[in-house]
């Protein structure tokens, strides 16, 4: 808590000014050369260096190499929806990042198990596999579906809660704030697809 310095200080420390020059990659002598150095400075940790465990009090603990262990951290996938990169950020109890990990490839099995167990909670978005029925009344609709986590009945409040991304992927939010996803509309069976088609 004590080293918890206010934001402006972190942001304005002018320590990188000197580093900008030499890092430019070969051939690209353009205006982004300094930027490359900035990207290179990003400390994204290889999963093989990370150990994750859960202590007796069900708190997630993470440590880098043989460094100190951070207790009670929370994994936060950086791009949970798009999956643009598998980056996983670990945040401490004050919501400050303690490390940023590049995916899960290379984690030892125990750590991986632990992380997956926690991610299953942190990002709970059941995938809809099949749609039994959508009962629609001018925007509000009751969906009856089978998900990868079992049968579910939920109410969608209006069309704003139904978002089509990347053409055939659909993200939903129900009235209570639960999330669901249809990974690929075209992978659904004919009937399910027709039902959804009426909604988008």
């Amino acid at each position, binding site marked *: 808590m004590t080293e918890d310095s*206010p934001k402006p*200080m972190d942001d304005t420390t002018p320590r990188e000014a000197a580093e900008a020059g030499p890092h430019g990659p070969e051939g690209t002598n353009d205006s982004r050369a300094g930027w490359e150095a900035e990207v290179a400075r990003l400390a994204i940790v290889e999963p093989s260096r990370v150990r994750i465990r859960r202590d007796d*009090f*069900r708190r997630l603990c993470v440590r880098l190499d043989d460094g100190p262990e951070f207790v009670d951290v929370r994994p936060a996938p950086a791009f949970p929806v798009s999956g643009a990169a598998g980056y996983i950020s670990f945040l401490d109890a004050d919501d400050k990042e303690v490390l940023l990990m590049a995916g899960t490839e290379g984690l030892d099995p125990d750590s991986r198990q632990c992380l997956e167990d926690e991610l299953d909670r942190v*990002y709970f978005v059941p995938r809809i596999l099949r749609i039994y029925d959508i009962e629609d009344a*001018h925007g509000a609709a009751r969906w009856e579906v089978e998900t990868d986590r079992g049968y579910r009945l939920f109410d969608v409040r209006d069309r704003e809660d139904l978002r089509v991304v990347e053409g055939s992927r659909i993200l939903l939010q129900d009235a*209570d704030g639960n999330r669901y996803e249809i990974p690929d509309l075209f992978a659904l069976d004919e009937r399910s697809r027709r039902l959804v088609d009426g909604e988008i």
Partner: protein
Amino acid sequence: MRAGRLEEVERLLAGEGQEPLPETVERELRRLLEPGEKRLITLHTDIGLDGRYDDRWLVVTDRRVAALGPEDGRARVETEVPLADLRGVRLRDYLGNGSLEAITETGAVELARFSRSVAPEMPRVQRILRVLADVSDSETGGRRGRGGPSKAVRCPTCGRVLPRWSEVCPFCLKRGELLARLIRYVEPYKAVAIIGFALSIVLTFLNLAPALVTRFLFDRVIAPGDLSRLGTAVEWLLAIYVGRTVVAMVRGYMMEWLGGRVVLDMRIQLYDHMQMLSLGFFSRKQTGQIMSRVTNDIMRLQYFVAEGLQQIIINLLTIPVICVMMFGADAKLAALTLLPTPFIAVGTYWFGRLIHRVYQKVWRRYAGLNAVLADSIPGIRVVKSFAQEERESKRFQERSGALFTQELNAVKLWTAFFPALGLMTAIGSLLIYWYGGKHVIEGRTSLGTLVMFTQLMWQFYMPVQMLGEMNHRVQHALTAAERVFEVLDTKPEMPDAPGSIKIPRIEGHVEFRGVHFSYEPGKPVLQNISFVAEPGEVVGLVGPSGAGKSTLVNLLCRFYEVEEGQVLIDGHDVRELSLRALRQQIGVVLQEPFLFHGTVADNIAYGVPGATPVEVVAAAKAANAHDFIVNLPQGYDTQVGERGQLLSGGERQRVAIARAILKNPRILILDEATSSVDTETEMLIQQALDRLVANRTTFAIAHRLSTLRKASKILVLEHGRLVQMGTHDELLDQEGLYARLCRFQSELSKVRGV
């Protein structure tokens, strides 16, 4: 167990908390519980510990907490913790779900997982468990938790969730009621509506009359070769045609007038009502959506209210009249003519449903297209400065393409259906020619009747078709009506709620008492804020970005309502004050000043429409805006452009300050009011403000702490909590956030050489 604890639990439960258990769970629970053990909570949860949807029950008694789950037809106790072992209860909130953990001396166990549908129940369970186990780890879970969202509002009749901002359940909605409500808008123009309706009936008969005259013409004039009657028949026809034209003109005008008039009323009512709605309504809905209700939806109603309703009644009238005419002339031929009718009716009904769905989609694509516009046009500066014109064009192209594709779907339906319908009707006419022709040749029917039939047939299918479409037409209009009424039914802020207190002159005593607030349920923005500001005091608000400073002043203006606690002005809860009286006496300079399209003078005088030029100039002088204004080509009469974009950021701010000053409010709120002006200008404004703040309560939010030197009290916010309070000097002496911020800024200003 300590006495009184159970009473406290009972109070927290308030008679709720026990959901009925299914047989198997009940049986297992009986086995588990000791004699005399008292059940306090039985709560259904919906996610198993393995992350699959499943039915579980969380049971709290006066001795233990347990989780039961189904197992092969009989229930099983999954976890169980005696209250005596309980050292803490942790509630974790994640995206889409949460979990409840029991902490004991040696570790923690997960008691239950649950979706957000159940989550709102959990904080209470947690509180009760803490009371029972006598633990006071009030902060476990911490601010990380999103907390429980308030449960979605559901329809009391059918249990379905209600649409946002609406109190009408679309499932339970009675169409009749909606129609009746629509018709009520026509009521003030009853006379026009009735005359119009009468004319419609006249017109219907005038449309049918030529068929009768034609029959007369063939049977009584042409066939017998009666030249003397020919003139009469043609005169009759002429009279009918002329009459029909005149009636149609008059009626057409009246109906258009009626539709336009009703829509005018509705639109004004809608807009007036919208102005009364709380800020929350506007920040949730997209601007485009709101606009489309005022324009599109209302337009759809225009047709329906004036024309559609009458059309339905007229069609319902025409059909039997034609039937009578036909059956009276030749029953057998009439029956034949009507043969295709059911097909046409069913066909149009089915088509109506289909096309309605397709049009809904077209409409949504249209909205998507509008969204691109609403996004990129106001943001055009950003688009250009990042050289992203092409990308925006592409985005627009994509949406336009999607709209086109969807429109084609509709076109495909239209173009397939109507020719097919034409064919059906044509076949009907063939039937008439075939059988009618035979009848005439055999002498069973006159030629005139045959001609009349062919004429009537076309007039008969038309209303049938229309009635087939009626369902979706009505649906269409009702959907639009629903959207309009949804807004009208949203509870407005009451500017002068009955019983509200009107303080003619606010003294300026402001108090926050244990205020909690969040924009989104469960994500606290302000927590337990308490302070007092005396009349005439200058209160500074500082803290990192996102700390909740703007939110705090929003509560003071009652733009939003507190969740817990009270905001008091002169000792009255702001909720009891008349909103109008309150806001008339509060002057706000917002962080992002908004100017309206109009002149500089109009903008300064916005809050005081009758202000004299002298007052306007005085306010501008005080805000240090006068000099730049008179330098503008048209001085105070210069147009500022949409949103004031013809002025610079600092100029806009100064106009906004002048606007607040002119109002001479009892409470002045400056949210970063001088952040976009240079230090010298700021100093000048500061001097003016120093004069003005005298004898009014001022709240000033500032990142530049130097502007707050004169503040008699500074509140330091961090993460929505009030972490420090005192004068500039007092706070400097304390080793805290303020001192750190200050030291950092003075270092910066040394660099700047100020």
